[in-house]
């Protein structure tokens, strides 16, 4: 267990030392502020009410869950897997005393930690921005719940990128294929809307199931099971490929 702990701390340490984290923080703050200004301007000057002020954090989430959050997640996952194999720095980790399974799991857990921290950070900024717009949000519990549940589809997306990283050989190819797969899955969801619920990308806004006055627990459970299925499958295949990978 101490090997796993060391591997996990190492992964977090490496993520924290990358310049991309600073860029993530700056871009997240700017994007939230910009969205806040646009919402405020439309509400105030155009007379169109696109959201109640208390809903700003969830409105921002609906924008960022398809843009910045998956993008930053992709960067971190590609750095952790593809970049380390391309630069051969993975040798430092793989010749250590931890088994490949432990190293792989530590990396996946570090990616999950990054996603959770990113969502928490975006939620806090949106809450602060919404304070400037119109005071304290009235439904704080639902906002927190939305961000917590958004973690699951983004985590499955991260596992998909990790799988792509373990198939491809370069960082650019991993990034391009990740974007293509993301667009393809979203496109398939639009074209074959009857089967949309089987695609994990359609669950990127599943937190909305909690926001209405009627909560469909059956549907929430079904989506959760589909996400779990994707998660287990992607983790299993990626771990197999990671284990077989030679340097």
């Amino acid at each position, binding site marked *: 267990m*101490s*090997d796993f702990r*060391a*591997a996990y*701390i*190492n992964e977090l*340490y*490496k993520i924290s*030392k*990358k*310049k991309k984290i600073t860029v993530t923080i700056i871009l997240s703050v700017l994007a939230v502020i910009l969205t806040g200004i646009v919402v405020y301007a439309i509400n105030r000057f155009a007379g169109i009410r696109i959201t109640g002020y208390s809903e700003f954090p969830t409105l921002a989430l609906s924008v960022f869950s398809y843009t910045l959050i998956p993008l930053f997640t992709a960067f971190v996952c590609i750095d952790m897997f593809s970049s380390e194999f391309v*630069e*051969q*720095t993975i*040798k*430092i*980790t*793989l*010749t*250590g*005393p*931890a*088994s*490949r399974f432990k190293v792989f799991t530590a990396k996946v857990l570090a990616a999950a930690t990054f996603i959770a921290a990113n969502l928490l950070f975006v939620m806090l900024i949106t809450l602060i921005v919404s304070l400037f717009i119109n005071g304290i949000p009235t439904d704080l519990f639902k906002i927190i719940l939305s961000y917590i549940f958004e973690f699951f589809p983004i985590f499955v997306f991260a596992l998909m990128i990790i799988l792509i990283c373990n198939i491809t050989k370069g960082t650019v190819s991993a990034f391009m294929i990740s974007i293509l797969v993301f667009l393809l899955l979203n496109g398939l969801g639009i074209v074959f809307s009857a089967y949309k619920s089987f695609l994990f990308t359609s669950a990127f806004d599943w937190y909305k199931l909690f926001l209405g006055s009627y909560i469909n627990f059956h549907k929430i459970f079904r989506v959760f099971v589909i996400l779990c299925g994707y998660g287990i499958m992607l983790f299993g295949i990626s771990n197999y490929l990671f284990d*077989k990978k*030679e*340097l």
Partner: protein
Amino acid sequence: MDKAIMIENLSKTYKNNRGIHDINLEVNSGEIFGFLGPNGAGKTTAMKIMTGLMKPDKGDVKINGYSITESYEKAMKNVGCIIESVMLHQYLSGFENMKLRARYFDVSDSRIDECLEITGMLKFKNEKTKNYSLGMRQRLGLSMAILSDPQILILDEPLNGLDVEGMVEIRNLILKLSRETGTTFFISSHLIHDVELTCNKIGILYEGKLLNIDSTDNILKNYSSLENYYLSEVDSNV
């Protein structure tokens, strides 16, 4: 005598038909084994398999009695290694790179400094490794390898990129560790002179096949130099 490393019928063939074929050898505890061969002979392939970076097509490697393919963690618990050139995280300093390995062994910062001092890298410990030369990277790699005070050191071309002074220092370090702590070494090199000066047992690998293994003393009894022995072995087996 305890067997520190046992290689049994080890084979690995690449798509271009190169690789290693049926390698068998044993290294006893405390020995300094030199794995001698020209570039492309298969030294790095064998060492990658020994450290779990590659899977063999056939055969196995046992380190301290544990199979590298079946009990990786137990096998690698007391092993330090350098495989090919040392690749470091360039956005981290030398010390931070060391810290990544130190966490696995619960090693203190003072031990990191001690290892950096041994390899002459202490004064560069806070510099980002992107500014390091090949020789500095190699020295840091050695510091990382000895950090946990391992019983076995597997070093693939450890003198790569080092100047003459550096080569002598590292050679002396190997001899000192072997003498004082009984560390077992498995060193690959194509530098015959350095192998002759450092190793007490030598195996010659040529075109993926292990031609012969003998002690340095025996070899030098029968040949004027290791170079002559090497050429004679290669000639008689080609």
